[in-house]
């Protein structure tokens, strides 16, 4: 590949159906978790500047908007984890490719099965009405 200037444009949609959606979901969830990680480095590092400042900023994570954001983070983490395991299985076990769609169903099922109760726990202070703010 010795191209000068822009590389040739290719249609990014390869009509991979469920596999394509898994790819999109993996990229989007990965990007969201990565961006959160960068933010999280900054907010945790406030602890070295002053513990009061850390507590003040950290208290924000308890409000309802950021709790919803944390539920989203949980779903992104779960999907990316289970789909990542699916990718490793497809790479390692030849039989996994043939059962690729069933594996993706398992990924979605596990994400929901862990995400819904987890999300409920995160939102519980709001649901119970004990959340301030």
């Amino acid at each position: 590949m010795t191209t000068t200037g822009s590389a040739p444009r290719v249609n990014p949609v390869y009509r991979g159906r469920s596999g394509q959606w898994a790819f999109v979901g993996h990229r989007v969830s990965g990007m969201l978790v990565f961006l959160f990680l960068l933010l999280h480095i900054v907010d945790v590092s406030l602890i070295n500047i002053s513990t009061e400042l850390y507590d003040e900023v950290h208290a924000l994570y308890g409000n309802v908007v950021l709790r919803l954001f944390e539920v989203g983070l949980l779903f992104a983490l779960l999907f990316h984890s289970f789909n990542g395991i699916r990718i490793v299985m497809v790479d390692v076990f030849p039989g996994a490719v043939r059962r690729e769609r069933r594996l993706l169903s398992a990924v979605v099922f596990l994400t929901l099965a862990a995400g819904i109760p987890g999300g409920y726990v995160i939102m519980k202070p709001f649901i119970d009405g004990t959340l301030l703010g």
Partner: protein
Amino acid sequence: MTSTPSTDERRLAVAGGAPARARRPRQNFETWSWFFMRVSGLVLVFLALVHFALTHIINDVVETDAAFVAERWDNPLWRLFDWSLLALALFHGLNGVRWSIDDYVRSPAWRAGVKAVVYTGSGILFAYGTFTIVTFA
């Protein structure tokens, strides 16, 4: 070799170059990058989910204040746990971003520029996060 490979080209690289040509896989940078993603990913499933469960499910997020952090970081093994999570997640994420940039940013000049910004920003934050975990007293 002026342009960076796209995802398809990387898959070929992982498969060992052009199928007709190379019988023995070439262990180039992209091969190791693929391998690193698989290994770090599997370790991160454990590290990230345990970390999330501890700070959002087992303990409510409002309980994870400075005193909570101080108590955990009193144990060097938790510092090691958190630093491993930081390092693996950051480089796993950064490599994913690198793949995405190669897929979507087609102009070589823009590609180099975007990568310079992303690598610099991530590098600074990795150093800052490491500094925080190591020096907290």
